[in-house]
């Protein structure tokens, strides 16, 4: 791995950590306050690509595991991984990978801005919502014995917020690509 890639990964991990320190935002039409940190996860894939984005997320999880309060709300330490919502943390890794994987393939510089935005949105939605919730809900069901259908219903309230985040991640991905393109990933 080039030093530049290592630094890009570390800096983006730092961005994800910084986003966790921002207070949750309450939008009027969504019942649950949304935290900015999972937005950072989607953006990691959209901005850095699949490989670097995934490693950035893994780095954040490592920092949490070794006892640093990097998760939103100042959470950290191994105890965080004992919670039933750990599936979402595991899901972050695959969400970043999926978003990056799709973004690398769907988006190109020749496309008009709108097409790029839509492509990023699809990538962020499939990665940051579909894949993420698949992991979160499945883990919850496995660990607590709650049937998947009920676990899904329990998580429903959070989905609108994450769809909004996918939209923001798409806009950010497109804007960053215009200003400092890191996609397509050069070998």
């Amino acid at each position, binding site marked *: *791995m080039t030093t530049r890639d290592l630094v890009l990964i570390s800096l983006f991990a730092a961005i994800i950590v910084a986003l966790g320190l921002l207070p949750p935002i309450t939008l009027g039409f969504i019942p649950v306050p949304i935290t900015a940190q999972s937005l950072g996860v989607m953006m990691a894939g959209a901005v850095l690509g699949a490989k670097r984005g995934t490693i950035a997320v893994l780095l954040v999880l490592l920092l949490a*595991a*070794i*006892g640093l*309060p990097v998760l939103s709300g100042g959470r950290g330490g191994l*105890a965080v991984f004992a919670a039933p919502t750990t599936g979402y943390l595991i899901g972050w890794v695959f969400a970043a990978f999926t978003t990056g994987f799709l973004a690398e393939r769907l988006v190109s510089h020749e496309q008009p801005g709108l097409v790029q935005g839509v492509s990023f949105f699809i990538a962020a939605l499939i990665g940051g919502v579909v894949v993420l919730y698949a992991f979160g809900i499945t883990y919850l069901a496995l660990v607590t014995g*709650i049937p998947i259908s009920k676990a899904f219903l329990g998580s429903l309230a959070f989905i609108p917020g994450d769809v909004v985040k996918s939209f923001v991640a798409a806009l*950010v991905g497109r804007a960053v690509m215009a200003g400092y393109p890191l996609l397509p990933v050069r070998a």
Partner: protein
Amino acid sequence: MNALFVEGDSWLHRLSPRAKLLALMAISILLFLSRSPWVLSGAVAAGATVYLQLGMPFGKAIGRLRSVLLTIAIVALLSFAVNSAEDALVALLRLTALTLFAAAVTATTGVGDFIDEITLAARPLETLHILQAADIGLAVGLVIRFVPEILNRYAAIREAHKARGLPLRPLTLAVPLIILTLKDADNIAAAIDARGFRRQGMHGRTKNSSI
């Protein structure tokens, strides 16, 4: 950013990180194999004893775990509503025990010790040419180093928005933050390479030199 490590000299502090992590892994497996509320209650009692004996004031010790315990409680309630009381109790006890043991390991193991342990564990990956083990410690150090700068930059961008009378929108705040931060990457990478921090097989030499 303060680590969750708590200074002390208990037996748990003196145990090696590897022993603690392996023990935690073994305890996790045992906890998930058991479905008996009695065994699991015993585990919770054991975990609480270990964790609360570390010397932290009770309020502070539990305060750290507040969000995790709250999540566990909510999920246990959901389980009670959807499954049986026994299922809910098993889930509650099992996860609470795991939380207490995990928190005890975190409180008694320093960040540096963890990194040393992980670097050692990653050596086999180095021979497989997947990664350089010492890069992990370097990456962790970089993140810790740059989080404050990113927060400062975010504050500056917010101020700039206010000075121009612009509404604070996630999009207009995040984009400059990301672009400006990533543009630093080239300079930082050059500085790292100039100091030879990533030369193959020479990490040990530069370990004790200051930046």
